[in-house]
């Protein structure tokens, strides 16, 4: 290069592309169900395709499970429960979980790239959030496996048997980890159904399970859509159900579970209020609001989708917020500098588009930064609605996309009233420098998780879950272990 060509443009924040390499990932043409330690095709031979939502490129064909396939998986799980897994000591079970956690760490780049390819989320999130938390969940529950007597002192606990688990597409691997780790630590065996748009990391996890020599049948993975999930829910051989997903499906599952009187954990939708007081650390509050609603494109059940800001700073706060949103980098999810990735599926994009159109039609003021959307793939720009009334659809329905509504309040009482005025009750956020106000608010907010001066923070030791139509039962901590155990009377328990 001649010296004269080397004088660069001044440095600016329009960074050069910094794509993560996809060479670490080897995607097969097709994937079967993972049953009894082997990958097997559907009995019907049916498959469906999974695509990269950022490019609409085909990634792989995946087996489409029927009731018969679910039946095979449940039978394998039952055999493993009656067989090796059920006989195993807690410390042995813990050993497997520790191995899985370490494998996730070692192969984290591979998992992160695959998660981003299949789901559209920015690589920096799959790399810095999904993978570390997935491993952390296994590490945490591995530690409990041989300590159940201490976790529930003076009670004799036993696993339920076969757990049926259905996970969503927003955090595919992480949600699988949240469900598998406590179930296995408690001594259950599992049939897991990943979401149909994002099955690939769960299937790569199956690879890990084989590598760590987990006995066949302890974890079985059946892929498919709603029909497959319904077959799992209705299968009489399932002793315990856990579901994360939409409130509508959750209600159907609750009906089925209650008819069979089996225990159930539901982690459903949300419409969280993010409450910002005048005396907050304003810049950090702006940042919290931005990550609260735009991380993972707003595909987060606990997303802070309703901003409630104290009237005295509302205009200034929205101005700061819009300025910050204008610096969000939307585009190639594999680029390490991308902040906002692709919408997970064409269906979800349609739902977001329709709800935003409803918001405009009902009279709310739409704000979007002028960012270019890629030509191919499913994309939606970060969106803010001001002039929103409590009765507006966009303030009431879960959008599950990068859409924030802004409302104001004058007193803390009014903030609480507006925050609680929703059928959901999963999470809420508070920003104020006044500790007593945080405690007062946290007591009155009807939400399973209340974050103060932070948002979307997770830890395996901390229980997570909702009230009202956001579901019941908790994941994380001892609260998340308990639903996978039942109390036995009389006989001394085996296991621990």
């Amino acid at each position, binding site marked *: 290069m001649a*010296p004269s060509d080397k004088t660069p443009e001044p440095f600016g924040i329009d960074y050069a592309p910094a794509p993560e390499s996809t060479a670490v990932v080897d995607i097969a043409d097709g994937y079967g169900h993972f049953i009894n330690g082997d990958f097997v095709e559907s009995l019907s031979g049916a498959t469906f395709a999974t695509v990269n939502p950022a490019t609409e490129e085909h990634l792989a064909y995946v087996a489409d499970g029927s009731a018969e396939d679910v039946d095979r998986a449940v039978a394998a799980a039952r055999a493993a429960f009656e067989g090796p897994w059920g006989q195993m000591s807690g410390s042995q079970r813990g050993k497997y979980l520790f191995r899985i956690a370490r494998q996730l760490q070692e192969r984290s780049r591979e998992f992160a790239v695959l998660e981003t390819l299949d789901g559209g989320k920015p690589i920096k999130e799959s790399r810095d959030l999904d993978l570390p938390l997935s491993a952390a969940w296994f590490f945490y529950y591995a530690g409990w496996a041989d300590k159940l007597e201490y976790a529930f002192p003076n009670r004799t606990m036993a696993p339920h048997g076969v757990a049926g688990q259905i996970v969503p597409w927003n955090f595919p691997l992480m949600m699988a980890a949240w469900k598998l780790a406590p179930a296995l630590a408690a001594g259950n065996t599992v049939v897991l159904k990943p979401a149909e748009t994002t099955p690939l990391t769960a299937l790569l996890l199956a690879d890990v399970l084989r590598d760590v020599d987990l006995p066949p049948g302890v974890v079985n993975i059946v892929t498919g859509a709603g029909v497959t999930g319904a077959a799992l829910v209705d299968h009489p051989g399932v002793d315990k159900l856990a579901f994360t997903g939409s409130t509508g499906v959750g209600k159907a599952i609750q009906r089925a579970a209650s008819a069979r009187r089996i225990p159930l954990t539901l982690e459903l939708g949300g419409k969280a209020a993010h409450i910002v007081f005048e005396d907050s*650390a304003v810049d950090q509050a702006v940042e919290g609001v931005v990550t609260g609603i735009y991380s993972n494109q707003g595909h987060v059940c606990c997303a802070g989708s309703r901003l409630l800001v104290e009237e005295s700073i509302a205009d200034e706060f929205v101005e700061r917020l819009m300025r910050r949103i204008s610096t969000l980098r939307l585009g190639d999810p594999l680029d390490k500098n991308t902040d906002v990735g692709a919408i997970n599926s064409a269906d979800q994009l349609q739902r977001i588009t329709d709800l935003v159109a409803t918001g405009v039609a009902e009279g709310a003021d739409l704000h979007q930064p002028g960012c270019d959307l890629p030509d191919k793939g499913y994309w939606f720009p970060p969106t803010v609605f001001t002039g929103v009334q409590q009765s507006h659809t966009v303030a009431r329905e879960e959008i599950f996309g990068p859409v924030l509504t802004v409302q104001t309040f004058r007193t803390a009482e009014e903030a609480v009233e507006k925050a609680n005025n929703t059928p959901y009750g999963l999470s809420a956020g508070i920003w104020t420098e006044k500790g007593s106000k945080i405690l007062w608010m946290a007591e009155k907010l009807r939400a399973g998780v209340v974050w103060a001066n*932070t948002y979307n923070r997770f830890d395996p030791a901390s229980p997570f879950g909702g009230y009202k139509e956001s579901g019941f039962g908790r994941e994380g901590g001892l609260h998340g272990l308990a639903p996978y155990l039942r109390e036995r009377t009389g006989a001394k328990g085996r296991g621990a």
Partner: protein
Amino acid sequence: MTASPAFLPTTGGGPVRTTPVDAVALEARAAALCTRSIKTTSKRAALHTTIRCIDLTTLEGTDTPGKVASLCQKAIKPDPSDPTVPSVAAVCVYPEMVEHAVEATTGTGVAVASVAGAFPAGMSAPAVRVADIVDAVGRGAGEIDIVLNRSAFLSGDLGRAHDEIAAAKDACGASHLKVILETGELGSYDQVRRASMLAMAAGADFIKTSTGKIPKAATHPMILNMAEAIRDYADQTGVVVGLKGAGGIRTSKQAWHHLVIVGETLGSAWLTPERFRLGASSLLNDVLMQLQKLDTGRYSGPDYVTVD
């Protein structure tokens, strides 16, 4: 602390307000910005911009006219083998060395900055500090770096801290005034935010993190905190104030993450020597080695850049 004082800018207008700072969230945001991946053309641009914003500094009791002359030569032509490498923004020296620096840099575009006002502690009588500034300006320093009166500021005598900066600004005349907050001695991000507003309201052309004489200095969250204060001040008054990070900046990666933080907080327009400086002595050589690596594909080593 929630009760934040308001300061009256000497340039007129209403009082400027400060906002509280949440330390955990501030550090999390800075850490997130430090994951920005700066590659290829962006890396070369960042390295050049870093050089253009450097205040190449020597502030030792052992400084001599010869050492200053050598430093100035380096400032003007950081890499004699590569004419595309730009000059740094300024050299920064003690008042005694100003004339030697002026002599060596006249006509080159490299400015001469002098510390003054009883640097680095500032613990001298106000008249002595002003005389020190007047002396440095008289010797030809176009930029004056003074320290905030931490003793007054921390004891709550904000009026005195403010007025002394205003007096220093008067003493500077046409020279630019940089006010060093010595962030490592202020105890909290809240205090730094407040001191930033105070210094800007008192007339600082630049606010600067540190003297480089104490260990805790120009960290990334601190630069973010001060950049946000500068943005707030510009929003409230329309006055543009520059930012200088100094102390502990030794590697190119640290430097370009400072550029990222300032660029994403204040905009790319702030990434010029008129508005952003990095005070450093050893940073420049690391940047030169990084540039050589971009050209040749391998690291050369410290013997292939000059030690001045």
